[in-house]
């Protein structure tokens, strides 16, 4: 089981990845509480903490496993907690965007598939 300091490092990393900012103290507290209540053990998180540039690849690669992959489960817990932080609400509420945004999302989707392929070896950890 990860200790509090490690969990704080994890949420810091996830928050910077998901909302491009450090987590609020409340989000940090909730993440630590959540993972201490329901421990989720995976080697991938520890690896990603040591090598943060791998996070997007790990995220994309674990997508196909849904909640069965512990890393994905942790990332969704972090996402759910960050979603309830008013300061980050604009990252989560529906946006008013045009079709150009839809096109850019398609490119993001393709990029995500490439990242998933590149990140596939991480699943062997």
């Amino acid at each position, binding site marked *: 089981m990860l200790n509090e300091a490690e969990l704080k490092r994890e949420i810091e990393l996830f928050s910077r990845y998901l909302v491009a900012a450090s987590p609020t103290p409340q989000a940090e507290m909730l993440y630590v509480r959540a993972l201490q209540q329901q421990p989720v053990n995976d080697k991938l998180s520890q690896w990603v903490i040591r090598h943060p540039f791998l996070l997007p690849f790990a995220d994309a690669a674990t997508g196909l496993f849904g909640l069965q992959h512990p890393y994905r489960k942790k990332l969704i817990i972090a996402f*759910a907690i960050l*979603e309830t932080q008013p300061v980050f609400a604009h990252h989560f509420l*529906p946006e008013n965007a045009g079709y150009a945004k839809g096109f850019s999302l398609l490119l993001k989707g393709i990029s995500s598939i490439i990242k998933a392929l590149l990140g596939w070896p991480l699943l062997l950890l």
Partner: protein
Amino acid sequence: MAAAIVMSTDLPVIVVGSGCTGAMAAQTLVEKGVRVLMLDGGVKETKYAPLIPSADFVTLRKTDEQQYRYLLGDALEGIPFGKVKTGEHLTPPRKFMTALTQQFIPLASENFMPLESLALGGLGNGWGLGCCVFSDKELQACSLNAGVMKAAYKTVAARIGISGTRDDAQPYTAAGLDGLQPSIQMDSNGKRLYAAYEKKRSRLQQKGFYMGRPSLALLTQPKQDRSPYPYHDMDFYSDASRSAYRPWLTIEALQKSPLFNYQGNLVVLRFSESDDAVTVTCLRTDTNETATFKGSRLVLAAGVLGTARIVLRSFDAYEHTLPVLSNPYSYLACIQPALLGRDTDAVKVGFAQLSLFWDKRGDNMDVPMGSVYSYRSMMLFHLLKDSPLGVKTAAAFLRYMQPAFTIVGLFHPEKYSPAKYLQLQKNSTRLTGDELQATYRLSFEEQNTVSETETAFTRALRQLNCFVLRKIEPGHGASIHYGGTLPFSKQNERFKLLPNGQLGDTQRVYVADGSGFTYLPGKGLTLSLMANAHAVADNLV
């Protein structure tokens, strides 16, 4: 003969359960000057409701520092990580509905996952508010008296307050009801779909599809101490405005009457009859001790499954088989491409905005119903679990798609078939000493009918430029519509109900929930359940 029994002036009528049916039966009895003792599980929500400010969903999301408590729950119970099953998606402020059920009303099944409640107000706390008047054919198939029910519908509608519109759906929703308040406004999702329907009305109607505004037990104008719908889109979290009818409103009003006595923290185990009274034995949920109450009559409104337990236990009929009905239910997760990335709505509504009926024979019988919702006041993380993309990319997609999401909840009509039944079996590990075992399998023909209906709705929605992305089957029992365990019959037989709701082979026991219904139309059931409960109580005095 039941008619020979004289009501004791000393003893109250005991009503079991405070859900939609118990509340209506109790109100009818009290209005007739009868003393009522209501025995109920009585679980209340006290933790989250006081935390929720009176504001709209978006404002709360942007401002309320405490939102994590009611959106996720103090124990993060709002993040469901298991398989999709009935009740899994209840928000933390609604989770109280299912509290204590595992301990006090256990059910074991491999293929039937019903939702039951020991809450004050029962399953009515989560009712989607859809109100449908059954056609004469449907009432006949349910073994209900059309004349009695039509009058009862009007009484119940006047009590709870219904909003609706006279349109193409009206023959399937509020037919014959007067005094409807105007429908709630639609958001862009509903408006666009309805505009498409109006353009293609004749083509769709040729195929038997009729769309219109649903009749909802939701106020758009003030009624007594209840306010109009505030468009806060907090419908899955809070009842603060009292615009939505919930049975606890009736119980709260009845508690002002000296004729009404409410006793909570009780699970009714069994009844026994003597010459002058009926004795009810209960288990206290706070102390696990038993308690007994005497009444002149007993009205069971514990929900179909709850009533089945009480009746089987009372007759010591362990392992006796009762049939059960439950509408098959599925969700169609759809998208209206024209609304992608267009969050321009001032109006946001969590309740159903449109109803789509498929009357393929044109006789208002065996009509499946689709209820159309937007996906606004739910959190994105609920959808992430099902995405094959990485969390960050999936979230960007979902944000863009969210204004265009349209959810169609599809209720299918339900008839008896051999592989749907209940049994009460002894189990010494349970607090009650037994557990209800349920088996529910659709026959091959029924599965085909469900598939055919889903395909027909998918095609009809496509014609309205609304495209089904995914069909979700949350499992048997997910419709939260149950019936048929103690079918209505003209014969006075055990495990059957006489047409007035009296339980066969008893003198003083009546059933006011859906246990007697011998058919479940695909339309919203709750208004009919309440109307029947009123009729049973009305006939009792």
